């Protein structure tokens, strides 16, 4: 029996069990990566919850993402999927066009967005300028930096869109027919047939989106480094550009990275990651438990 389980067991312990146990262990230690860990008890957690001046900002920024980016992505992906499901011709072409950005590597996509949204030389503000609109500073403005990342997130929403499209096309036709016979209009069919039928997929997209938002890192890291104009060989200033401008893109995982890898505080970074794990778990649990009220599982008995 164990033999049959062994591939899974090995994978689980090496890539999941061991790192978690180590993270919890290191979070209770002072560990600078270079000298052996030294037991400090709950000191890291005390600093995290009471003293670290950046944790509050990072948490606020990350919550903002969960509250804005996740609903925006789900609605946008669903909207496109609904439109594609109704299209009569050229479905293949449009599906490809909307999916394509999802294939762009996040770093390249972010570089591209910082470039086209450059307030001085980028084409977007040039275009807005021709229309008589003075464009915002986008990635250089603390008010606009997060919305800019949201635009980037919406652009790359292809994966979710394809899953929604499959779910929408999978809704049994006879339900629409009987709804039509009852005189339901477009909105009523969407509200009472489509949405309940695809609700498990919406749940999936929300849970995945929330977890991704809690772990949001690559785009924020690249955008801050490039937009701050300090991505240069001067090793002593790159860490200062994390969160640029004015800590508006300092998300929790960015802070975690900063402490672990550029401040040499792996013990403290482990404490941050343990808290992130617990929060992700609790948030997911809350969503899943809460979802029983609105998710329609086919064949389930209530």
């Amino acid at each position: 029996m164990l033999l049959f389980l062994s591939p899974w067991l090995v994978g689980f312990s090496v890539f999941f069990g061991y790192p978690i146990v180590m993270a919890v262990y290191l979070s209770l230690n002072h560990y600078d990566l270079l000298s052996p860990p030294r037991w400090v008890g709950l000191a890291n957690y005390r600093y995290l919850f009471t003293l670290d001046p950046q944790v509050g900002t990072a948490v606020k920024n990350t919550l903002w993402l969960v509250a804005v980016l996740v609903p925006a992505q789900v609605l946008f992906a669903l909207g496109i999927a609904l439109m594609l499901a109704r299209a009569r011709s050229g479905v293949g072409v449009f599906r490809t066009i909307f999916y394509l950005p999802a294939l762009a590597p996040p770093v390249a996509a972010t570089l591209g967005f910082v470039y086209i949204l450059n307030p001085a030389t980028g084409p977007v503000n040039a275009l807005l300028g021709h229309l008589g609109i003075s464009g915002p500073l986008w990635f250089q403005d603390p008010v606009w930096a997060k919305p800019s990342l949201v635009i980037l997130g919406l652009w790359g929403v292809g994966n979710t869109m394809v899953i929604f499209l499959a779910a929408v096309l999978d809704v049994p036709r006879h339900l629409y027919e009987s709804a039509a016979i009852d005189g339901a209009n477009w909105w009523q069919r969407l509200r009472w047939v489509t949405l309940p039928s695809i609700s498990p997929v919406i749940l999936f997209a929300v849970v995945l989106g929330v977890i991704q938002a809690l772990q949001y890192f690559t785009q924020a890291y690249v955008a801050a480094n490039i937009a701050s104009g300090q991505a240069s060989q001067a090793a002593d200033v790159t860490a200062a550009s994390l969160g640029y401008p004015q800590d508006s893109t300092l998300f929790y995982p960015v802070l975690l990275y900063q402490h672990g890898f550029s401040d040499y505080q792996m013990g403290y970074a482990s404490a941050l990651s343990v808290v992130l794990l617990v929060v992700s778990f609790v948030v997911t649990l809350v969503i899943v438990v809460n979802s029983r009220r609105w998710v329609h599982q086919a064949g389930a008995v209530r």
Partner: protein
Amino acid sequence: MKRVVIAAALAVAVGLAIATAAVGARHAGPTKLTVWVGWSAGKELVTFKQVAAEYDKAHSDVTLTVVGGITDQKITAAIRAGNPPDVVSSFNSYDVGIYCGTGAWLNLKPFMDKSHISTSIFPKATMYYTQYNGTRCALPLLADTYGLYYNSALFKKAHITHPPRTISELTADAKKLTQRNPDGSLKVVGLDPLIGFYENVPERWAQAYGAKYIDSKGHAILGKQAAWQKMMKWQKSLVDWYGYKNLVKFQAGLGDEFSTSNGFETGKLAMNMDGEWRVAFLANEVPKLQYGTAPLPVDDAQPDLYGSGYINGTIIGLPKGGHNVDKAWALVNYLTTNVHALSVLTNGLKNVPSTTASAKSKEIVPNAHFQTFIKIFNNPRSSTSPIMASGQSFTNLVQTFWQNYQAKGSKNLGADLTKLDSQLDAQVKQAGGGNGGGGVP
């Protein structure tokens, strides 16, 4: 049968003898030494390799391999993995507190004692940023000092006859030199004071006001000195004169600092605070640009600070776990103390030579622009930033604070600075695992 066995045994013996001879020969041959450096830009790395090649040629017992483009993260990862190179160097003297404190870079004192190298041959500031709480784990390999670059053609056009010496002169000149487009956006900026721009970090301006980070016990004292508030309020007033948003937009249109579209090189910045290496970049990239160099202007109330500047620099040392420690030390010793080696590096990199003797070397090609920085380097009031247990996150926290202030201002800067002090103290304590501290300059 017996003969066959004997023959076989003989063959094995001969084989073994040849094998051991081969192994022995390999031991007698030159030792391979690997050197990691941060330089990556074409000419800089070439110059370092040239010095390494000279050493290689003169020392038959070693063969050198130079690897460029190395960051601190790569060095740390290699030390952690237990297979570091023999010699490491870094641009980042801020993290010396971590390297020396953890023993990741070896203590050089025993080596220096054995080779009779005294710390007195190096200027004082360089000796501070290469140690932590008395443990010396690095030596300076050339140094950086910061001063004011000004565009002479633009000065002439604005009828400015000499570089500014005080902050009020600097402010007046900056305003005079600034040109705006018809739509109000900035075309040429007299001096871009935004913290975070190119080389603009708090510690380099702090020097101009004599502002200190820590007291003799290593506690942060930004809120306790008038200098920090005076300096930050001046900077904020200049930022507001341009308009914060205008400056940010202007900066977004400038090229990367280390590229040919650097704002000073393209003439969009009439004055700029920068390091001495810019002299070499300007000569290579825009040889026709007319410019001058001068010490950074200082607080009007403290004119005797004029001539001094901020100093830090490249550091070099031996990583824990290196294999050929003695031969590696011989190389480090040569690179950091040999006047000829330092002169060649100085000529090629246009970084400041880091021993007192090499600063006077006749081998160094005279250059009026560069001479300014050697003078700043030797000024007794020049200084550097504190080496703390929390490394560069200490100065980064101050920088983040200032960046928020320059954008949003503050109702009570003094109180905010006092709060920052307690955050800095807590950070240092946390970084040391409860007993962190700082080295007093």
